[in-house]
């Protein structure tokens, strides 16, 4: 074989690998990037025309895949060579992944739209990503309570404490709601801080004693909980199969929309209890082995455009962190305290802490004990 045919074959092979199997693309960035981009985002988490518009504007072909849990994303990232150019982990996960060296630093000179970002929120996420070096906020939301208005009233009367975590965490209320169905996210990092907060303790406590107290509270209501799952409740709330769920804000709104569309008489509401709730941030970041970092920067900058961000929020009902976008968002959304909390409510919101592996094990062991009742 001559060296000429050899190199031609090699070129054909690499081209084939690049277009068909992102995982096989060599990590070394080439000067002129191929006009493609591999994005890995949460499911149901972008406006219908976002990708189309980006492709039309830049000529970059986007392959858009979705995941539905941080754990799955993290397992992929830790195994390495995902082939993705942009991934969207939540704050505390991002922090650990940065520590593991998963992400490269952003080149801010390529991100002029970063000026649109809310400085207050960027400061909050600096707890996960010091100096905001590796990531920008995509959307943010809260973890609180979604409920079926009629069924809760039926079970607890007109003065049901829907403005408090006591709705679920008070065993008496939980017992009364058990028949119509309680669900919780299967995520100890979301539920245990809520329990600690309800008990008047530091929601970010990592010590054994505090976690045991949260465990004791959750165990008391465990007999009344139908299941722990992080996506099933969207459908079940909408169908009326469960009546109270600890869930993510946007997911509860999705359940509300589905019930409206089905016109089945189910009315779903989302409440951020007066005791406060967990505020989380989904962060856009570029893995160190991303094959197309240039294109990734273009996409990040595009997502931080005020109109683009507003369009996404209008579609997914999650708040963005873009100050310039706020006036462009549907007033129905900006006036909804479940999505854009009032300044006063914001003060009560707490962000998740980064757990070390020992605390992780404590938390998950407590969680298993709660779920299995042992």
């Amino acid at each position, binding site marked *: 074989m001559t060296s000429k045919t050899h190199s031609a074959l090699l070129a054909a092979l690499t081209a084939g690998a690049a277009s068909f199997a992102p995982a096989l693309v060599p990590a070394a960035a080439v000067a002129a990037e191929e006009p493609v981009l591999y994005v890995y985002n949460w499911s149901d988490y972008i406006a219908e025309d976002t990708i189309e518009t980006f492709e039309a504007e830049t000529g970059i072909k986007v392959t858009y895949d979705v995941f539905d*849990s941080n*754990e*799955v994303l*993290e*397992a992929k*990232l*830790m*195994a*390495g060579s995902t082939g993705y150019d942009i991934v969207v982990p939540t704050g505390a996960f991002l922090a*650990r992944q940065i*520590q*593991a*060296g*998963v992400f490269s630093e952003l080149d801010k000179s390529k991100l002029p739209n970063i000026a649109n970002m809310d400085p207050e929120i960027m400061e909050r996420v600096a707890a996960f990503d010091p100096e905001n070096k590796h990531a920008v906020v995509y959307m943010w939301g809260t973890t609180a309570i979604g409920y079926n208005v009629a069924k809760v009233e039926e079970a607890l009367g007109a003065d049901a404490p829907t403005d408090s975590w006591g709705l679920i965490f008070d065993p008496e209320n939980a017992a009364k709601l058990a028949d119509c*169905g309680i669900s919780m996210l299967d995520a*100890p990092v979301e539920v245990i801080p809520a329990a600690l907060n309800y008990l008047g303790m530091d929601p970010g406590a990592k010590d054994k004693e505090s976690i045991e107290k949260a465990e004791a509270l959750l165990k008391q209501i*465990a007999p009344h*909980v*139908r*299941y*722990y799952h992080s996506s099933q409740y969207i459908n*079940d709330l909408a*169908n*009326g*199969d469960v009546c109270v769920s600890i869930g993510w804000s946007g997911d509860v709104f999705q359940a509300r929309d589905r019930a409206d569309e089905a016109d089945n008489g189910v009315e779903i509401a989302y409440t951020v209890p007066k005791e406060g709730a967990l505020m989380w941030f989904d962060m856009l970041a570029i893995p160190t082995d991303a094959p197309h970092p240039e294109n990734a920067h273009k996409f990040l900058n595009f997502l931080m455009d005020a109109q683009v961000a507003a369009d996404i929020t209008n579609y997914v009902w999650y708040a963005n962190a873009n100050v310039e976008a706020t006036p462009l968002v549907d007033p129905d959304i900006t006036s909804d305290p479940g999505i854009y909390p009032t300044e006063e409510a914001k003060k009560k919101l707490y962000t998740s802490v980064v757990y070390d*592996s020992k605390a*992780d*094990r404590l938390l*998950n*062991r407590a*969680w*298993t004990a709660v*779920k*299995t*009742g*042992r």
Partner: protein
Amino acid sequence: MTWLWRRGRALVVAAPVLWLGLFFLMPFLVVLRVSFAEAVIARPPFSELLDWADGLLTVTLNLGNYTFLVEDDLYIDAYLNSIRVAFVSTLICLVIAYPMALLIARSKYRNLLLMLVILPFWTSFLLRMYALIGLMSPTGFINSALALAGIGPITMMQTDFAVYAGIVTGYLPLMILPLYSTLEKLDESLLEAAHDLGAKPWKAFLTVTLPLSAPGILAGSLLVFIPAVGEFVIPALLGGPDQLMIGKVLWTEFFNNRDWPLASAVAIAMLALLVAPIMFVRNALGAKE
């Protein structure tokens, strides 16, 4: 000629050996290796076993993962519960499948009936489980029908019942097919002989049909039991939160605790726990034959 023949044979054997070596043995060795490592925050998230520094090769084997499995009774309980669930499901499958296999083997429509048994395999396993959710959920098909009759609703989802229903529907064909293949080969003249010698039908069944179908029972039971022990999807979709199964524990270790080494140790321990008794049963039955 013999040279060619031998070479051809070696080639035929080499393909499966290579396949098993590459896609079964190698992954197993990887898991075994990870099970002796320590979890770290890095990529990949476990420590290296070998360290070469200053001309000194150090091998660090962390046995802590295995001792931890014994220290916390969570793991032993999960193993025992998985084995119990798998055992009960296998029994239910056997009880349902045996008469079906017998009927098919003796029916003149056996091809059609066999087809009906295989038919569910043409639908994705996951979809069949979701269909069961549609059937058993509080507002599902069964409860809607019961509501018309003024009964219910009955809670079926997130219970042990739902898990058994899932495993049995999912794995039933795996029990029927080997049973059918042994029963179909059964020489009917043996039953006629038993009848001629005065055996009642049930006695002929117990002394002739049942013993002769033992290989089918064993094969079918293993096909159901082994995957049922490690089953993750069915308990995750249909089961209740209080159901402790090893597949779910493994998921928690791997994804929630991010402890790949401990997750690997759980998997290796499960393999060791299952392989020994199954080899024993196989050998005992093999010796009898």
